[in-house]
């Protein structure tokens, strides 16, 4: 099947087949990651810029590892030394990068729409590593990968996403991605943390009553309480949040026996997740998600840069 995308910016531009190809490719990269020397020459010679204009450790590390395992040349560009801090415009920064003759830009920015703008300006491949409150497509893909590994398919799966949906770029990609794959979705949050139109994102249902919804869920996706991104105070206290929307040990009995728990990390223990759930040997797939991040990012780099098949088979 032909994969024709040049960018991974908006997950809604990807079809079910595109996403399945991405997941299947990711699965093939498992073998590389289980070798003693975890590197293949697939993207040798490709230059990838990790343009992280906002602090990020986990996502950037995950991309860097994926790039290195595929032998791409990568350059970290950003942080507190960004040209933006010195007053350079985004356009000028991107044009400067392009003058380096690069092949791909991985971009994280606190402003929505930046990856698209970079794609239009640069002409090189672009992966959105999170733009403002908008999207974070590789996170959605790694979430799908973990769910797929556990559940085998998406059709008819009941997935509940709990927490700060209004300010979550994770949800901006995950909810539409789940809809594309045929899952049923329910957004669970206090009204102060819901976007104006959850249906536009892809939420089939909205609930403020976690306990009434939990028994139906195959996947419970807990969002991080983003303390740094909460304008005003959308709930009275972390204590009350934990009581109403935290996945506590007490809620375990409400869940399906085979329900799994996902979280994009980093976890606020005692807020959205009790340690009992975070470390639950059967339910928690949180560390599998981290590993899946490497796999789907390798897959995305590979498919977008059109690497030869040698890498996987080598």
């Amino acid at each position, binding site marked *: 099947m032909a994969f024709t995308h040049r960018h991974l910016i908006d997950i809604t531009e990807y079809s079910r087949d595109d996403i399945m190809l991405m997941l299947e490719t990711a699965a093939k990269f498992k073998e590389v990651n289980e070798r003693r020397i975890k590197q293949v020459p697939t993207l040798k010679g490709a230059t990838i810029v990790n343009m992280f204009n906002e602090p990020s450790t986990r996502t950037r590390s995950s991309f860097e590892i994926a790039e290195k395992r595929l032998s791409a040349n990568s350059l970290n560009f950003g942080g507190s030394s960004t040209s933006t801090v010195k007053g350079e415009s985004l356009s000028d920064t991107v044009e400067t990068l392009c003058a380096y003759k690069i092949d791909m830009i991985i971009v994280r920015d606190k*402003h929505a729409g930046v990856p698209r*703008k970079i794609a239009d300006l640069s002409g090189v491949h672009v992966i959105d590593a999170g733009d*403002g*409150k908008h999207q974070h497509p590789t996170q959605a893909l790694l979430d799908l990968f973990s769910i797929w590994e556990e559940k085998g398919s998406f059709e008819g799966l009941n997935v509940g996403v709990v927490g700060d949906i209004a300010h979550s770029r994770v949800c901006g990609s995950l909810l539409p991605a789940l809809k594309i794959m045929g899952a049923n979705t329910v957004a669970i949050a206090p009204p102060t943390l819901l*976007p*104006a139109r959850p249906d*536009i*994102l892809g939420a089939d249902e909205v609930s403020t009553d976690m306990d009434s919804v939990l028994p139906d869920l195959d996947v419970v996706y807990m969002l991080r309480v983003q303390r740094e991104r909460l304008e005003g105070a959308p709930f009275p206290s972390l204590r009350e949040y934990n009581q109403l929307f935290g996945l506590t040990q007490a809620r375990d009995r409400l869940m399906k026996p085979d329900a799994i728990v996902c979280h994009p990390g980093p976890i606020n223990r005692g807020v959205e997740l009790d340690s009992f759930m975070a470390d639950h040997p059967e339910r928690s797939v949180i560390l599998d998600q981290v590993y899946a991040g490497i796999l789907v990012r390798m897959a995305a780099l590979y498919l977008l840069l059109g690497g030869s098949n040698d890498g996987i088979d080598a």
Partner: protein
Amino acid sequence: MALMLKGARCIDPQVGLDEVCDILIRDGKIVEVGHDLSMEKGEERDLTGKIVVPGLVDMHVHLREPGYEQKEDIASGTRAAAHGGFTAVCAMPNTNPVIDNAVGVEYVRARANEVGKCRVIVSGACTKGLAGEILAEMGDMHAHGVCAFTDDGHGVQSSGMMRRVMDYASQFDCVVMPHCQDDSLVGEGQVNEGVASTRLGMLGWPAEGEELEIARDIALCRLTGCPLHIQHITTARGLEMVRQAKAEGLPVTCEVTPHHMFLTEDDIDDTYPTALKVNPPLRTSDDAVALVEGVVDGTVDAIVTDHAPHTDWEKDREFELAPFGMIGLETSLGAVLTNLVAKGIIDYDKMVQVMAVNPRAILRQEPVKLEAGSTADLTVFDPSEEWTVERAGFYSKAGNAGFMGCTFTGKATDAYVGGYATMEDGVVVE
């Protein structure tokens, strides 16, 4: 020096005129409107196929001078106005320094006299520095020719302060023109709260953030008796409040922009076009339809552009960092002719009413009529000229036009201010 405009269709609902005739102008005034007029000496213009109306007035324009001349100045902004067919604009006071005292008023008036290509009606701030805290010297500004007060760009947040503004302003024959925005609701809102804010992943600017202040200011109008003109109304419910206030007999008027009527939040696609970032934001298609109905039924008194020029480098950046505003002086008439008149939604009489007659009345300006004795401020347009909006054609310094690339039918060709041509055959006269 006499000027004869020959053969145009002359339309003025104020005098019940709509027929092909000649207009004779001398010493800045209309001397005669009639058939087969002749004169002994003077310039004659053949305007066959064109339409002449009382000069258009845009009562909501940011000329940006003093302080932001990189975006626009009085010379370029008034040329853009003339090019768009306007013979007068009302300049907003949110310059740097803010026009909140008589010195500022005199500066703008002097510059307009020196370099302007249309009349510049100066509005003054309601509060010092637009901060919403201390009354500006409205009396002094009024004595220096200000006929409207506004803190445009900001809502006056405190109800008590807004009451004081309106109470105080009511002693002058002046309208107070609020920009309705409740900051605690709007916050850092970027686009209409709802589909657009969710789809684009940006903070929403809710309709209620505008409607609450409209409701409040109508109540304060009732309390103080001060004439109230709601700026750039964008929502169906906000308009309904104005409709009810008018039915009650309150001295309330309002304005809408072409962009809020003819563009919607759905036009903001995933390229994050910053030209469409305006304040208040583009709303839903239902709101846009309601605004057009408001023009038709008379609830809307004026069509204005809220011409808000910015430099390319200010607009060419992240959507959330780009400033609000789009330019409109050179596209307004074309947009209205194409989207309202040509479609039969309104007739020329109504267009003249909302783009010339009512703005003058609200701003306490002498009426301009197509009859003997009136000041010869006239707009001439070709109703059939098809043209495409492009940067190259602008007299404005700025290029942040929301209608860029649109094709319109109908374009201003000539404009006269006090009998002098400011534009002839589509070219601004220098």
